[in-house]
């Protein structure tokens, strides 16, 4: 890959730590049924039906090319990642690889099928999904 200058490697650790801390703050979710349709449970960050359920979206950028957008809400979080693509060939490789994974999004559970405008890949999760992964499974089939 492209060789990293000293300043580049120096920003990697703080960048990852900043993203981790922000995710820790944003991943405070609770189960919340839809206010618009009864008996439905939708990820509010996708539906965006009510302003009071959404958090401020924040960006953490390492430089102009690499950044992470974290949009939170009461029951779901969407993380959009812009991967560094230094030249044409990396752009093509990144695009193909992301497309490969996103086409199989159903198996990944937390992947979104289409990336948000300006980013390369999206990770989205809702309360139920978190409970399964973090706490080793709660056999009830909730959303």
């Amino acid at each position, binding site marked *: 890959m492209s060789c990293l200058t000293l300043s580049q490697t120096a920003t990697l650790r*703080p*960048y990852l730590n*900043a993203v981790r*801390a922000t995710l820790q*703050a944003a991943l*405070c979710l609770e189960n919340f049924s839809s206010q618009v349709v009864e008996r439905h449970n939708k990820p509010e960050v996708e539906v965006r039906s009510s302003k009071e359920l959404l958090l401020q979206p924040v960006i*953490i*950028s390492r430089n102009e090319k690499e950044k992470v957008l974290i949009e939170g809400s009461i029951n779901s979080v969407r993380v959009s990642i812009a991967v560094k693509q230094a030249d044409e060939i990396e752009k093509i490789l990144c695009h193909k690889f992301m497309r490969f994974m996103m086409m199989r999004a159903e198996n990944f559970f937390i992947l979104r099928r289409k990336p948000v405008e300006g980013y390369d890949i999206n990770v989205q999760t809702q309360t139920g999904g978190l409970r399964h992964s973090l706490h080793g499974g709660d056999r009830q089939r909730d959303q």
Partner: protein
Amino acid sequence: MSKLPTSARFRRVDVDEYDENKFVDEEDGAENQLGPDETEVDSLIRQGNLIEALHVVLKNPPINTKNQNVKDRAEGLVLKVLTAFKSSDLEKGVQSLDRNGVDLLMKYIYKGFERPSENSSAVLLQWHEKALAAGGVGSIVRVLTARKTV
């Protein structure tokens, strides 16, 4: 089908607008929030009194104003002060702030991330680390849940 004598205009009414429980952001009028004083901050930076410059630039945050220019100017000023700090002085700068100051600093840091330039992200990442150490995850949560941003 014959036209009904009564008007059907009621069908075009957006019922959701009249819902009493509908959430409306409270509008706290602009209240002459002009943002930090540019000349004062500049002179403090030139004198090298960076901690004081940090305090001054965090006063009067343009939180309630809808004027985008004021917000941009404030953000530019804060970024100037943050870049002027030497890496070894970051910690002292953060320690000198009270809790509201740390929260406000976090808000400005995230605002600064939105427009990355030459070296700004590297500086902001360092500030983020120190502010996180001082404010904890709580300061980030307060940035995420704030209804009015800087």
